[in-house]
């Protein structure tokens, strides 16, 4: 642990004087005692455990081996109870407000009529689906599964970077990381009181069941996957197994008389709730993209008539649009009359002339993101970009200002990682998972994503990111 030198950004483990923070002290002590050789040994065992479990994801565009073990780091990231409490309440507040917003925007649109939000911003959003206007969504729950991306600034303050309200992924890695860490460092766990994440499957099932409009005591819940070639297939299968429900593909389902059925060995069986891991566009070739072979013809019609529940609802992408994100603090104040507990990152809206001018003059300092993309695609990181890339981005912004937003380059916090040459600092974010049904459930933990490339600020798995087990402590020491 001696080779590790923290730099100027916020370090999860060490304070500015180079001392381990109190909640990391037992961990530091543990790894110092363990020694480099034993650590390598444990790492190999953990590698094998991931490989044998088949904890893999698919990389698009690789012909030789499409399945890769998800890169991970074996040093856990630790959050104290005091750090966790505002995250938990901030996330509850945010999901509540965003659900009220979606309900409003697809019915009376009061927030627009009251002048809080410009109507063009909503109507120009690619994920705003007119077909959803006036559709009655059970319980008014549009978003029941969220994975919110949080980052920390130099002072260690948490910010919301992104709300993922469509089909957020990664929760399986939270579960897999924990399982492997418990096998790899059992004695480290005994030095802490780490809160369990094992109840996620139960919590998810309860949430999904609560969404059903029917009077059944036990509505039939299924997980809808695009299939084994999808990059998150491992996760879809794991969630179905954790919940003990059937994992279906589009071709297993059919709609007759607005009822959704699955084809089983005992004939057709009705489906009540679908946790769909398929984007809106692909759900139903009749209502949306006609070339989708992954979806179910007639599903939207059944949904609109209330004969089946989808989680998340259709059209939720409008609320995690990167330009709309800038308005979430206003959205929270408008619907809840409260100040946001978790602050937003400052965001420039490029359809605003003054803000656009400022951004165009400072492209070398800012981060520009395409509003419709996710996974770190279509992104310009000013300080790490060439003049040519900046010029190209400037052209693109002038052409379609609505397609982009800009933010200051955030110096994400860093955490120590074991990458084969001792400990080295790497940038991290945090994605906790929130469930919203008849009540809100947050499993204490989440996915800590790591930018494994030295100096990199991009944590997405499709861009060379990995993950860490994330520990939320039951109570603070002292």
């Amino acid at each position, binding site marked *: 642990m001696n080779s590790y030198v923290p730099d100027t950004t916020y370090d999860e483990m060490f304070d500015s004087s180079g001392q381990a923070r109190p909640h990391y002290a037992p961990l530091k002590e543990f790894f110092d005692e363990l020694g480099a050789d034993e650590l390598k040994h444990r790492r190999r065992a953990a590698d094998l455990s991931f*490989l*044998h*479990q*088949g904890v893999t994801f698919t990389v698009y565009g690789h012909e030789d081996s499409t399945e890769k073990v998800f890169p991970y780091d074996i040093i856990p990231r630790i959050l104290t109870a005091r750090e966790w409490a505002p995250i938990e309440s901030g996330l509850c507040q945010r999901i509540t407000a965003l659900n009220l917003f979606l309900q409003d925007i697809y019915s009376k649109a009061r927030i627009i009529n009251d002048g809080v939000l410009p109507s063009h911003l909503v109507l120009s959003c690619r994920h705003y689906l007119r077909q959803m206007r006036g559709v009655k969504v059970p319980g008014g729950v549009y978003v029941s599964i969220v994975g919110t991306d949080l980052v920390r600034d130099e002072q260690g303050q948490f910010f919301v970077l992104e709300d993922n309200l469509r089909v957020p992924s990664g929760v399986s890695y939270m579960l897999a990381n924990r399982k492997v860490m418990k096998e790899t460092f059992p004695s480290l766990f005994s030095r802490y009181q780490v809160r369990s994440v094992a109840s996620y499957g139960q919590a998810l099932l309860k949430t999904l069941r609560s969404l059903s409009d029917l009077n059944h005591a*036990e509505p*039939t819940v299924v997980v809808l996957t695009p299939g*084994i070639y999808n990059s998150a*297939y*491992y996760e879809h*299968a*794991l969630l*179905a*197994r954790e919940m*003990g*429900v*059937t*994992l*279906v*593909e589009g*071709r*297993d389902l*059919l709609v*007759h008389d607005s009822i959704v059925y*699955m*084809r*089983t*060995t*005992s*004939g*057709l*069986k009705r489906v009540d709730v679908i946790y769909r891991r398929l984007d809106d566009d692909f759900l139903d070739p009749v209502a949306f993209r006609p070339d989708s072979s992954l979806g179910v013809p007639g599903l939207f019609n059944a949904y609109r008539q209330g004969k089946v529940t989808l989680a998340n609802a259709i059209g939720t992408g409008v609320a995690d649009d990167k330009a709309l994100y800038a308005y979430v603090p206003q959205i929270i104040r408008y619907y809840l009359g409260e100040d946001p507990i978790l602050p937003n990152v400052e965001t420039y809206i490029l359809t605003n002339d003054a803000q656009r001018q400022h951004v165009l003059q400072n492209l070398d300092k800012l981060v520009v993101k395409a509003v419709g993309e996710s996974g770190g695609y279509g992104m310009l990181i000013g300080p790490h970009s060439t003049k040519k890339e900046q010029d190209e981005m400037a052209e693109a912004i002038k052409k379609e200002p609505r397609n982009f937003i800009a933010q200051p380059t955030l110096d994400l916090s860093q955490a120590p990682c074991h990458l084969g040459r001792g400990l080295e600092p790497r940038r991290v974010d945090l994605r906790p998972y929130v469930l919203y049904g008849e009540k809100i459930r947050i499993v204490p933990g989440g996915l800590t994503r790591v930018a494994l490339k030295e100096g990199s600020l991009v944590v997405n798995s499709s861009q060379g990111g990995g993950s860490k087990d994330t520990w939320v402590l039951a109570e603070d020491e002292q």
Partner: protein
Amino acid sequence: MSSSTMLSRVADHLYWIGRYLERAEHTARVLNVQSHSALEESPERRRRQVCDVLSALRQPELNLTDMNEAAYRLALDPDNHSSVRSCIRNARENARHVRERISSEMWEQINKVHLHVGGAETNSLFQNRPQQFYQEVQVGIHLINGLTDSTISRDQAWLFVQVGRWLERAGLLVTLFETYLQNAEQKSYLDWLGLLKCCTAFEAFRKKLGVELNSLKIVDFLILNERFPHALHFSIMQLRKSLDELAAETENRKARELHRLVAKMHHDLEYQRPDEIAGTNLLLYFDRFRRDLQTVHALVYRLYISWEVEF
């Protein structure tokens, strides 16, 4: 709810897990026995032996004369869809589709065997110590089967694996017997010994029928014995049991035809005498048997997997 509901697509994958694993284990076992015994044979007999192995494993079209080459093509050749390596890859691919329906223990063991057999080091192990390779494959698959039996509820998931397994075993045995029971009068003691060993039956046979080997005794044991797991009678009995339980479990009212066919096959094996079978045209006998097995497969598909929707 999920224990009584099973997607037709999932049933299909489970069925093929059972079939591919059985095929892989059988191929490894036969190759292990035959390549070992070929070591002490004359070149001419060795060539004939290669020919027999190829037809016993349903690959006569490979048309090879060298045992080492044949063994490689049947064990490791990734381009041969029936090689041990391909069968295990296919079993694992099917398992990947139904991960949420099989136990983690079962999945991890299938994955381990796949990673082992698919790995590059395996080629040199196979070249230097082929017997160890075969044994590792066999033990690996037995472990999968053991974990399947001890970690899965006896519901549809387990039953579909069993149907695949026993149907495949019966089919493989029929082809094996067809090859080695032809021209029975020309067979030597070593031939019979090899056949018994291919079915891991030598010790069990000796306990029941003594040391003398002839075609009648072989028929009596490998076809008609109802207690030995690699006998045809036993395989069909297990197949019948699994199919009947499946019909009850799914409450499928159209399963009568399938039940009748398999029950009839079972009864034939139950009441026939060895000399009745040995006295008939064995080629015709096995040919009919194989066609019955194909019908069983088609009916399983029509009942449970690719059935027509009626409203």
